[in-house]
């Protein structure tokens, strides 16, 4: 028994018929062919699938598509405005906050929510804030730095240097 839902994805309203058990992440990846949102686990642990639903970061592997009915969903594809990257995107590139890029979309979506609530978080707040998102490649140092950089950009402060710091 399929159910009709309407979801606004990255600003565009889509009406589709879906199986009630369909996961939001599969709706996004398979039905809507937006593959920027990734799947890294089957236990809601990794956060690779993180998207914003009505501005709140959710793990889209843990939300049913039908629960997104009537809601507005933002994925990594919706972060940039035209040719302008979102500050978090620029920050990740400038600070080498990604290696393989697999965790990156989810990590950035979580960071966006974090910064929306508090655009000047401490390192500790950032580390706890992204602790639902796993990255196996970067060791997190530069992700923390990138989120600080994006915060500065969003606040309109002077941007910190992005040169690597060696002891």
């Amino acid at each position, binding site marked *: 028994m399929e159910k009709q839902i309407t979801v606004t994805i990255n600003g565009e309203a889509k009406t589709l018929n879906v199986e009630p058990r369909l996961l939001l992440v599969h709706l996004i990846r398979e039905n809507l062919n937006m593959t920027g*949102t990734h799947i890294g686990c089957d*236990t809601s642990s990794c956060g690779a699938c993180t998207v914003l639903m009505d501005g709140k970061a959710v793990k889209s592997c843990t939300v049913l598509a039908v629960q997104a009915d009537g809601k507005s969903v933002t994925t990594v594809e919706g972060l940039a405005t035209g040719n302008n990257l979102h500050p978090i995107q620029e920050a990740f590139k*400038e600070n080498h906050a*990604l290696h393989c*890029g697999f965790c990156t*979309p989810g990590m*950035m979506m979580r960071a966006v929510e974090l910064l929306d609530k508090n655009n000047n978080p401490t390192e500790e707040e950032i580390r*706890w804030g992204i602790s639902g998102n796993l990255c196996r490649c970067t060791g997190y140092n530069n992700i923390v730095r990138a989120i600080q950089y994006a915060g500065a950009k969003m606040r309109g402060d002077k941007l910190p240097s992005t040169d690597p710091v060696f*002891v």
Partner: protein
Amino acid sequence: MIQCKTSKEISGMGHSMKRKEDARFIQGKGHYVDDIKLDGMLYMDIVRSPYAYAKIKNINIEKAMKVPGVVAVVTGKDLEKYNLHWMPTLMSDTQMVLPTDTVMYQAQEVAAVIATSRYAAADGVEAVEVDYDVMKPVVDPFKALDPKAPVLRTDKPGKKDNHIWHWEVGDKKKTEEVFKKADVVVKEKMYIPRIHVASIETCGCVADYDKVNNHLTMYMTTQAPHAIRTVIALVAGHVGLTEEKIRVISPDIGGGFGGKVPVYPGYVIAIAVSFLVGKPVKWIEDRSENLQADSFARDYHMEVEMAGTKDGKILATRFKVVADHGYADAQAAPSKFPTGLFSIATGSYDYDTTYMEADAIYTNKPPGGVAYRCSFRVTEAVHAIERITDRYALEVKMDPAELRMKNFIKKEQFPWKSPAGWTYDSGDYHQALKKAMDVVGYEALRKEQAEKRKKGELMGIGISSFTEIVGAGPSRDFDILGIKMFDSAEIRVHPTGKAIARFGTKSQGQGHETTYAQIIAEELGIPAENIQVEEGDTDTAPYGLGTYASRSTPTAGAAAAIAARKLRDKARKIAAYLLEVSEEDLEWEPGVFFVKGVPEKKKTIQEIVFAAYTNHPQGMEAGFEATHYYDPPNLTFPFGSYICVVDIDKETYEIKVRRFVAIDDCGNIINPMIVQGQVHGGLTQGIAPAMYEEFIYDEDGNILNGTFMDYLVPTAVESPSWETGHTITPSPHHPIGAKGVGESPTVGAPPAIANAIVDALAPLGITHLDIPITPYKIWKALKEKGKI
């Protein structure tokens, strides 16, 4: 400060150029295997065994075939008809693709369901009914050696035990003599736990067989696409799939770390099904399947001994290893080295006597032994030597830094021949440790520790001064299934002076698109921005053995430099022709040939390349392309010194890493930002087994923590803020003096952390704890010692 020979515009070596590949990743335009969607594509899901050891009495597929969307269920019996039910492993052992009668580990593939959608395939898996006759598994490798233990590999005619191979190196007799005479002998049993690479992307593929053209395109998460193509041809040649009919494409890979080197049964089944039904078949593992069934890493039981004088001079070492390989020897190691490069275990120290032996054992666990961010068992080796060195320092009551300084091979002793047979290329171990000590403030920390000890507080300082061995490797010693481990680069410069370069390696996050471009930019003066790097497509890239074991820079990076130098030689000829001078009259600076003493008489590389297509000298081949296959004369030996400071809560034994300073020496640095990123990432993968990760099996062979719920990959909270730096000791034999860095931190960090924790607990009589060291383990050890 790193010196750069090129301008920022050119961005050759030494520039922290921002990564070229990032644009697509930050905009959701990466192209990973699960993003591939082909017309008519079917989905495969796998039925797995709930038991570690069982006979399959019957597989009933009737109900599964009635599930809407299911088109086929494939069992071992189906594959047997084509002789595809077994496959070779990388170590020339054999492994089942699908079983015909017996399952050998929990989560082993039992049958595959093919359906029109992912969900239908999963429904099909639920509906397959398998009848098992459960047997008592052999889980412990030591019990597996018991003559009464059941022989697991009954498929091997005449096999009477569970022993796979024995290996040894060094001088047994001499070692025994030195140990007998030595004033001080220390010994510890160490276990390096079974862990998993746990890259955030799991494994998967899309097998696309085109019946009309008898051609297979295999998109797959592989770190070694060319080797895979050859292996497929060797396995499937008999059904008409010969090597020219196979194209392996490795798209963007979401982390590999060695886990994407082996061929897993799922890939083979997907190919077989696509071949039979003539449609593309996609198979993507779930995380739990990935953890429970894909190749593990480590699982080494070691007895480690060191002999020395009373005043702290190391005289000899001895190592005895029992390696649990699971039910098949499917580790990834070069053919000649069954224990990989474990023989680097003599470490960074100047002594001449060692003996090492290892035995590999079959058990009812998944097969594997991948080189997880490690040149084939180097992690185990470095843990052994760095732990026992600290143990020895404790015994002779010497500061572990002082003891290391006393025993280090001196920089003027390089090239240095190790007692296990390696020739270390270059090093300055004293400098690296000194720098780490200065940065961390070693003296002050020791004073603080002494104060704290008086108050009963637990603070520890741990050092690891490791020597790595990477860049496999010289073809006289290194091959995988007979294929020599060289690597390759091909550079084509277009008439307008922009280039494309292709390689036999495959990045999984290391940033090759940027660093290879920088190497070529350094040699040719073409801006790295204008050099497009491509890897992973066997139809277009030159043959190579892939990316793992920190081999890309030492092999393909060298190939890039040499191919570029061939082009520079050609450029010199063209410039001489254009400027009407002899070649000797020309001088090179990045991007320009000019006449000696007349700098305004010059030709830029772009002008020269254009001339190669439009106005090249008579008799010279037109165009501007070069290829090089690089066979290294030796391995490279990166090294480093790491210092870790921990505070342990004296009531809860919670361990807090207060500081972690890592000084790495990987020779000349191509991109400092990327090198640092690699070190950060590797350090977090080093703290992982040191404090958090370990697979646990019960006596029935059930894996107790095979999901991300209970296998603890460090988050940003567990991972400390790393402090990293470097010294630079170029490799004398490498064309650009580079050594490779990716795995140093994974290898070097665990003993630094373990040494720090044991140092904190030493006043309570603790001399060793196996990793991962948890509060519970500390509590238990202290309880056993009667300290609480």
